[in-house]
């Protein structure tokens, strides 16, 4: 093993230009992948942020018995997911709508029935979208309830955006994987043609296949890891630059500061890079003749 590391180092050193070139191409590929992941991560964070500040309006039927309404209020107050419950009478609702539009006479002319009574619910921030939906479904089946507005369109749109983004990132990842494999394998094949004599000599003095192969796989691993780590460093620098330019504008607009790739994603990228590099190194030797 020590000998393999030694020979891998010798190989990297003697053909550093070739290897540097492939590390650069790998880094470019991984920057693309990382950027896509960054977008996905941030859309996801946005969805979490907005999806969780759940608010719902439960519109009540005209003439719903007050004791039923009261029962709903009590039940909701006892629900741990609910942060606050407020009853809004038709008069309250009318007042709320009109307060901002004092000059609008058409609105003023609307009858009291146009403003149904409702129960306004604020959901705890950490509650999941699915739990809110379950609660809504239960409320919907009550006889006093006319309909429910969950303001979920935003979350839905973000969800669509997220799945679209994830799909795009997955497609990009597939392309990057292919590119990385091709780059490492062709570098190795190039290095191999230039080192054909070396392989021939190894075979002649009775080196086993694994003895020949190991240094090349190590070189590939090193290249892959270095390329992806460089990509993360480049992305990090770009990210910091963009954020400093934004100066919090973006943050206040979205209600959330943009975030960088979490450490495990970054580490995973380096790991995948190393693995692909190793695979590329092995593939580059596929045509190794058994002289």
């Amino acid at each position, binding site marked *: 093993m020590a000998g393999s590391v030694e020979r891998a180092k010798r190989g990297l050193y*003697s053909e550093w230009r070739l290897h540097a070139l492939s590390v650069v191409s790998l880094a470019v590929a991984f920057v693309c992948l990382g950027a896509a992941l960054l977008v996905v991560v941030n859309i996801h964070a946005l969805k979490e942020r907005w999806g969780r500040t759940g608010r719902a309006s439960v519109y009540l039927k005209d003439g719903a018995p007050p004791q039923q309404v009261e029962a709903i209020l009590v039940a909701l107050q006892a629900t741990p997911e609910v942060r606050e419950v407020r009853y809004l009478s038709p008069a309250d609702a009318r007042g709320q709508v009109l307060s901002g539009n004092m000059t609008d006479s058409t609105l003023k002319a609307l009858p009291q029935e146009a403003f149904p009574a409702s129960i306004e619910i604020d959901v705890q921030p950490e509650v999941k979208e699915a739990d809110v939906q379950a609660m809504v479904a239960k409320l919907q089946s009550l006889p006093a309830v006319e309909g429910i507005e969950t303001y979920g369109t935003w979350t839905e749109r973000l969800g669509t955006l997220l799945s679209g983004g994830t799909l795009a990132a997955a497609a990009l990842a597939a392309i990057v994987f292919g590119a990385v494999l091709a780059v490492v394998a062709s570098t190795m094949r190039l290095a191999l043609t230039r*080192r054909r*004599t*070396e392989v021939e000599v190894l*075979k*002649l*003095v009775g080196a*086993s296949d694994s003895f020949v192969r190991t240094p090349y796989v190590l070189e590939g691993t090193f290249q892959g890891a270095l390329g992806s780590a460089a990509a993360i460093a480049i992305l990090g620098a770009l990210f910091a630059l963009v954020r400093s330019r934004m100066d919090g504008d973006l943050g206040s607009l979205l209600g959330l500061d943009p975030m960088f790739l979490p450490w495990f994603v970054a580490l995973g990228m380096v790991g995948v890079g190393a693995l692909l590099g190793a695979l590329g190194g092995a593939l580059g030797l596929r045509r190794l003749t058994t002289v």
Partner: protein
Amino acid sequence: MPPARPHEIARASLLSADALGGGRFRPFLRAGSRDPLRGGGDAQKKPVLVFDGVQKVYRGHSGTDLHVLRGVDLTIERGEFVFVTGPSGAGKSTMLKLVYRAETVDDGRILFCGRDVARLTDDSIPFLRRNLGIVFQDFKIVPNWTVYENVSIALEVIGLSSRLLRQRVNVALERVGLAGRGGDRAGVLSGGEQQRVAIARAIVGEPAMVLADEPTGNLDPALALDILGLFEEIHAEGTTVLFATHDRTLLDVRPRRIIVLDEGRVTDVPAGLGAYADEGIEIDAEDFTEGYGDVRVSSVAAPIPMRARARRAG
């Protein structure tokens, strides 16, 4: 049995006793042990190499099969120095390739140290080659490695301890006259020196046999004689040598056993071509030095048969 030289004391044989019996070729790495082939016992009586009815055909794409060896029989004993000669394209390289399993026989057997080379599995081939030292016309050394690295690789593949490895590489370099040159980049050496590096690599593992395929082909005549002298020294120290060449000058240096290969068959000339001529064998042809330059053409001016088609008079 040649007397033991000082460097032989530290010899670690690569050939296990197992290799002679069942199992596969396995390295045997006890420092200070002796090569069973040299050490006496049953192994000593066994020939190093036996060709037994060996046939080799190169299959052409369009049905143009080339029957290179048509039933070759020969036996090489331990400690022999044997030339293989014959016109270009006669199959000298092929014969050697069959021994180190770069090619496989189509029929017959090749016994190396009693083991049938043709029946080795692919996994065993490296073990076979660790018991052979191979030298080529084009040296086959790695130019961007140092002289030392080029030689030590033959011991690295068997995982020899670094102390023993250093000691043995230095001994080998000394034997080929490259003591102190270990740190030089192999690519900057002259042709003759590069071939010495290759020879050091071939002998550093103390193989059962050294195969040399036209090792002087790329060298000028004076250097060629130098390199031949080196092989003779190695032989004198107890190594079996099989030396393929078409260079008449080398064959005439000393009367030695010569195996003449032509048209797929061998003629064994135990006492060298000089004796062969004395026996009155008909000069059949021309030569096998055609196109190899003035030096060698003039050196074969002597009327000695080159194409020995086994037409022995009487």
